[in-house]
């Protein structure tokens, strides 16, 4: 997308927690302080307080006298994995709640979270997580395949739902559907049925 992530990481603009690598560290290296993924070592269903503290530490302004980075964005990819690792849906929701309080309310930033819909499979915990997150969100983007099946030129459909009640009178105009095609480094969007391939 034209952004140099390596340089951003070196400048301190990007902080990246690689879950897989970090999870291996927790088992094979001695930890002096609580590890962000400490819950993996606990026998009972724990909470994500250490992970939240990692996020909060990463967002603390650097004491170098320069102006720090403003309006942070927290990207979480993806929360459904945490459910598979044994955490309860409420623990994950609490983590996102605290992230919202710090990133959105305190630092005026944004939180973007990816979660998978279990679809036809009955997964109660995932449904609680998905619905709980939806209720906490101001904007929901639902990406799904086309109802008619696979298409080479239209990869899927995106439904956009705004849930920001205080800004609207005609609240229900705030649901839109677009179709999209994923290209090499970008995504192109078009209205339903208006793909350049079929016009």
């Amino acid at each position: 997308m034209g952004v140099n992530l390596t340089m951003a990481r070196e400048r301190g603009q990007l902080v990246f927690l690689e879950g897989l690598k970090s999870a291996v560290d927790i088992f094979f290296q001695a930890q002096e302080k609580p590890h962000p993924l400490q819950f993996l070592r606990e026998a009972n269903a724990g909470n994500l307080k250490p992970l939240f503290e990692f996020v909060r530490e990463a967002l603390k302004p650097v004491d170098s006298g320069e102006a720090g980075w403003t309006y942070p964005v927290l990207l979480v990819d993806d929360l459904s994995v945490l459910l598979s690792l044994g955490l309860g849906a409420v623990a994950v929701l609490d983590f996102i709640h605290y992230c919202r309080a710090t990133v959105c309310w305190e630092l005026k930033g944004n939180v973007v979270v990816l979660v998978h819909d279990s679809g036809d499979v009955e997964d109660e915990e995932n449904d609680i997580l998905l619905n709980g997150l939806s209720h906490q969100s101001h904007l929901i983007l639902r990406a799904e395949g086309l109802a008619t099946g696979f298409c080479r030129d239209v990869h899927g459909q995106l439904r956009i739902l705004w849930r920001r009640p205080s800004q609207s009178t005609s609240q229900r105009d705030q649901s839109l559907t677009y179709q999209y095609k994923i290209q090499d480094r970008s995504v192109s969007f078009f209205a339903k049925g208006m793909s350049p391939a079929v016009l």
Partner: protein
Amino acid sequence: MLDSLLALGGLVLLRDSVEWEGRSLLKALVKKSALCGEQVHILGCEVSEEEFREGFDSDINNRLVYHDFFRDPLNWSKTGEALPGGPLGALRAMCNRTDLGPVTIALDSLSWLLLHLPCTTLCQTLHTVSHQDSCPGDGSPVGKVHVLGLLHEELHGPGPMGALSSLAQTEVTLGGIMGQASARILCRRPRQRPTDQTQWFSILPDFSLDLQEGPSIESQPHSDPHIPPVDPTAHLTFNLHLSKKEREARDNLTLPFQFSSEKQEALLRPRPSQATSHIFYEPDAYDDLDQEDPDDDLDI
């Protein structure tokens, strides 16, 4: 009906969903209570105080007492800023209030409480808060208590939902059609039959309630008066209908496999004009022309 929800005391459940959110209605009812001169307590667990107060003017905001459980509900920061006892402690404290005027308690949200507290504890506390009839001790009547609980339907199973329903005097379920919001109001008054009504409404930007008649027929998108409906049977390159002559000819036709009496006679009586068929045979060089009939030895 929606604007007289607060006339009864007790617990009012506002059941919302992802598609039809209920916080605006909660805020509209909170505004109504504040305008009636009641004291309003908000137990805020899901949104920040600023976000909840957004849209209210200052005289409403001055009447709202906000108990902030958004910033640190589980006491993770351990700075001592979190209110002691958590949301349950605050709710229990409201059972022991000393002032006697009418009060409205808004729970934002009851779902958050139900996910974090045992259902029985929550139900017992809600029952105590919403049924404060008389002040213990001097017996003088206490003003009505209205408890408004915002409940996200999809998050809870039938057990807890049923328990809360049985505690509630009024249940409002939010829904809608084609951009128009509706509230289905189930009301249980003591010694009266429960009533079930649907009210269409919208919430104005200042959080006043605008009651409406329902989705109007003209707003439905399927008929556009500017484009006349096209007759698909006009201008075709084939016939869809038969003329009279064509219909008669069709009726007089006998089907090839229909066995009528004329056909039966024709088959039984060979026609004399019918010529016998001929077979022309040109033998090849390798053909063995044996005049002897191979079937001669059969004894038929």
